[in-house]
């Protein structure tokens, strides 16, 4: 076995090692904690890139933990789809972490920062695990680690809103877990396997024997992943949780955590369930409708918000709706659009939350109405906000347009122009609540009323990086789209 073969597991383990090293290092060698975390995230990113290359050369790879082959052992799988998700995951978590280095001191007590690093590493590691795993039970464990750490990076701030929000999140997420586990039990009873590939093979026969059990399992999976990914109407926990958390956590949660569950749903629906299973039952249709309702209602709720971060959080509900629509169309183009939106929205929303974090850091302002005229004091931040808004609306030149383009093409290919209209209306709604913020920030007739602290260069640099990525994703989308085309072509 060459060292390269261990990369799939190393990408997860490196985070867990780092996570448990952090509290020890933070006690004895505080200055090296942050550089080490950066190094770990960068190393993971490098590994993902190497794996991308080897997947291109050698095709999908499997890794058996402890050398035990499936169906007994835990299996990790690397293919283009997962590598795409991993790349998004590592790039964005590295980026958010660099931002967090400066912002955390503002939001947290000094002694908690070490623990924050631990939680961050665990969160990224578990998300990598969710993306990589090829085994339902391992998925369950990783999802739980992810859920607990996601709650913990909210509640670490220890003010009332955060605690309440994370409790709500935890309870609903536990409900999702319960449903998921019940679904897993159904599948296990019907087939005796937990490995994706074995399940896929044996479900074709099992569907004839236990049709109801398996449909129930599929429905439970929708509820489970829907709760965790804030699919409308299971989104109730999201606004509080994402709005009250420290800004880096919000960026992480809205940017990546909800996406990874949508991704898991995608994997389960496309990789595990055989196509015959979903025939005659409108499960895809349900996902599609819930996604489009989410896209509409998320935007409508967001319009009503007065708090900036709450508005961004509601907007996430709308945007995750697009991703679910991409999954629900069951068409190649739409799936590419949905997956592309995973990356685009991750960058965009993370950047918007960072911009909100910078605004809160520099001025303490959280209310949208107090932000009039802020653009003259924080031009770069608001420029980033403007670019982010443009991408949310889907203006040309930003990544948001590309994902909407593919989603709409998919919808038209399926002969459903109605959903294109939904996408457009929700884009319009996005414009209605994002544009006034940008406009008032720059063109408000009068002075900004609050004192403005200077913003650290690192924070501004991260924002600039975000802007660049958004524009690149809108202009040079070819490589990513080609990768996604290769990745999803096996489903159709």
């Amino acid at each position, binding site marked *: 076995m060459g060292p390269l073969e261990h990369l799939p597991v190393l990408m997860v383990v490196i985070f867990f090692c780092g996570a448990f090293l952090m509290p020890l290092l933070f006690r004895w060698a505080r200055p090296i904690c942050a550089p080490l975390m950066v190094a770990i995230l960068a190393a993971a990113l490098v590994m993902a890139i190497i794996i991308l290359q080897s997947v291109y050369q050698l095709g999908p790879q499997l890794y058996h933990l402890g050398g035990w082959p499936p169906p007994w052992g835990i299996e990790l799988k690397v293919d283009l789809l997962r590598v795409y998700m991993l790349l998004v995951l590592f790039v964005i978590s590295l980026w958010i972490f660099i931002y967090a280095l400066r912002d955390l001191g503002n939001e947290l007590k000094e002694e908690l920062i070490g623990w924050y690093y631990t939680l961050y590493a665990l969160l990224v590691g578990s998300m990598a695990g969710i993306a990589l795993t090829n085994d339902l039970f391992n998925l369950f464990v990783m999802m739980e680690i992810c859920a607990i750490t996601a709650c913990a990076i909210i509640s670490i701030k220890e003010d009332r809103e955060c605690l309440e929000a994370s409790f709500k999140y935890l309870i609903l997420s536990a409900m999702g877990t319960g449903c998921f586990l019940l679904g897993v039990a159904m599948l296990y009873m019907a087939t005796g396997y937990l490995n994706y590939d074995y399940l896929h093979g044996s479900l074709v026969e099992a569907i004839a024997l236990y049709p109801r059990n398996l449909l129930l399992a599929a429905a439970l999976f929708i509820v489970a992943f829907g709760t965790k990914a804030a699919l409308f109407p299971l989104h109730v926990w999201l606004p509080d949780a994402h709005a009250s958390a420290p800004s880096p956590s919000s960026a992480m949660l809205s940017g990546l955590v909800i996406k990874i569950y949508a991704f898991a749903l995608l994997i389960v629906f496309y990789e595990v369930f055989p196509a015959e299973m979903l025939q005659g039952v409108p499960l895809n249709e349900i996902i599609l409708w819930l996604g489009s309702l989410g896209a509409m209602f998320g935007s409508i709720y967001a319009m009503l918000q007065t708090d900036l971060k709450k508005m961004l959080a509601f907007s996430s509900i709308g945007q995750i709706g697009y991703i679910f629509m991409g999954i629900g169309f069951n068409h190649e183009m739409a799936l590419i659009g949905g997956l592309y939106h995973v990356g685009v929205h991750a960058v965009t929303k993370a950047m918007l939350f960072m911009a909100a974090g910078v605004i809160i850091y520099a001025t303490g302002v959280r209310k949208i109405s107090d932000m009039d005229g802020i653009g003259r004091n924080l031009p770069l931040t608001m420029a980033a906000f403007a670019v982010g808004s443009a991408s949310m609306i889907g203006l*040309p030149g930003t990544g948001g347009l590309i994902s909407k383009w593919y989603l709409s093409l998919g919808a038209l290919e399926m002969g459903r122009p109605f959903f294109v209209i939904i996408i457009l209306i929700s884009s*319009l709604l996005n*414009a209605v609540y994002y544009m006034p913020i940008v406009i008032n920030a720059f063109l408000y*007739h009068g002075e900004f009323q609050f004192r403005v602290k200077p913003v650290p260069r690192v924070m501004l640099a991260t924002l600039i990086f975000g802007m660049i990525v958004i524009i690149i994703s809108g202009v040079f989308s*070819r490589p990513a789209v080609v990768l996604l085309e290769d990745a999803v072509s096996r489903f159709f």
Partner: protein
Amino acid sequence: MTDSTIIVLITLIIVLPIIMTPVIFFASRYSERLRNSLAVITSGLTFALTIALYPAAVQGNVVQQTLFEILPRLELSIRFDILSFCLAAISSFIWFLCTIYSLDYMAKEHACSRYYPVLILALGSCQGIYFAGDFFSLFVFFELMSLIAYILVIHEETEEAMRAGYKYLVMTIIGGLALFFGIIIVFELGGTVSLGVGSIIQETSFLALIAFICFLIGFGMKAGMFPLHVWLPDAHPVAPSPASALLSGVMLKTGAYGLLRVIFHVFSVDLMLSGGWDTILGVLAVITILLGSAVALTQTDIKRRLAYSSISQLGYILLGMSILNDNAITGAVFHIFSHAFMKSILFLAAGAIIWKTGIRKIADMRGIGRQMPVTMGCFSVAALAMIGIPPLNGFLSKWTLSLGALDAGMPFYVLVLLISSLLNALYYLPIIIPAFFDVPGGEDHGTGDQHEIKFNIKEATPGMLSPLVILAICTLVFGLTPNNIVFILSRLTSAFLLLGGAL
């Protein structure tokens, strides 16, 4: 002229203003003079470069060049043909004059270091629209221009301007999304959105109709077509006058241009006629013409009256497009030119009056022609042309349009044109006649002399007058001689489009 020269020129025309935008922005930190001269030079150069393409346009050169592929089969490309040339030439010409006009007009205004870069960037994106080689690039530049125009609209930053601007923005975004939807459908049905392949959609279908309606919404919104005109009468008057002139005179035409491209490149004349879609356009155009004229009558603010007039004038262009024969298209294209000249004169003249006196109400303008004879003279030329007094260019376009309507066997449209001309006369003459023949001030006609002392007003600065005069001369020249350059260009364009418009 070789194709590569043309491509280089076009790229320069689009890129030069866009590159100069930040330069002008930073120049304004050092000196206002530098900023102003850079702005004038940039717009002048753009105009010169555009005019340099004239021989190629007359020879009928068509160039289509892909620059960059964004997605498979979806690219950014540029295209040159005579229609592009016509619109690019007229808009860069007006832009150049408006920039000169702005130098004096804006000297009193605030935030000039924002105004000039935005003006130049809007020029760049406008030229981008005309030279775009496919609907996606067109859409990109269209959205860019629409969003930039927002900053021009709200330049004054008054409460009223912000409200109008918000309305404009919402409508723009609705239009943009509709356009996007249309482009997606075309891409889905035809597999391409390039302008270089002739009619992309060959047969009518439900989706094709939706696409047509979407384009109608997207471009019609910009062109102020009924019922999507609601933003226009608010947004145009609140902008600074040179910007209003550009908004009404040039930027409205991007909508008309887009519709022309849609009709001839996405669909085809046969498809439009067989689907009966020309009727949709025709009905909307008639309503637009009559409604615009009728509402203009009721306006008391001069710039609002001009804005409503723009709506009805754009209706003529839409009408020409709905008739779809040689004369009608010639008329429509020619009217794009004439309306650009006329409406810019009217707005610039109104701007000069407002700048000098602060008068915005039409009722207060009695006798102003005696104080500002040159300004009001130009205004009158343009207004008379608008009404369609025979030798002027407004008459020529209406004449050609009527010929087209008669050719197509639709005399009803001629009636509409006549009624609208009458309405035009009703709302323009009450401005001109009192301006020259009344004494300033008020109702007491006999004792005007003491009022005249109160209203002792001189003409605006030469920098503002010269663009007006140049435009007025153009209006006269292109109207008085039936075989002028512009008319020939319109004829050629119409012939080119009706031949299929492709390579």
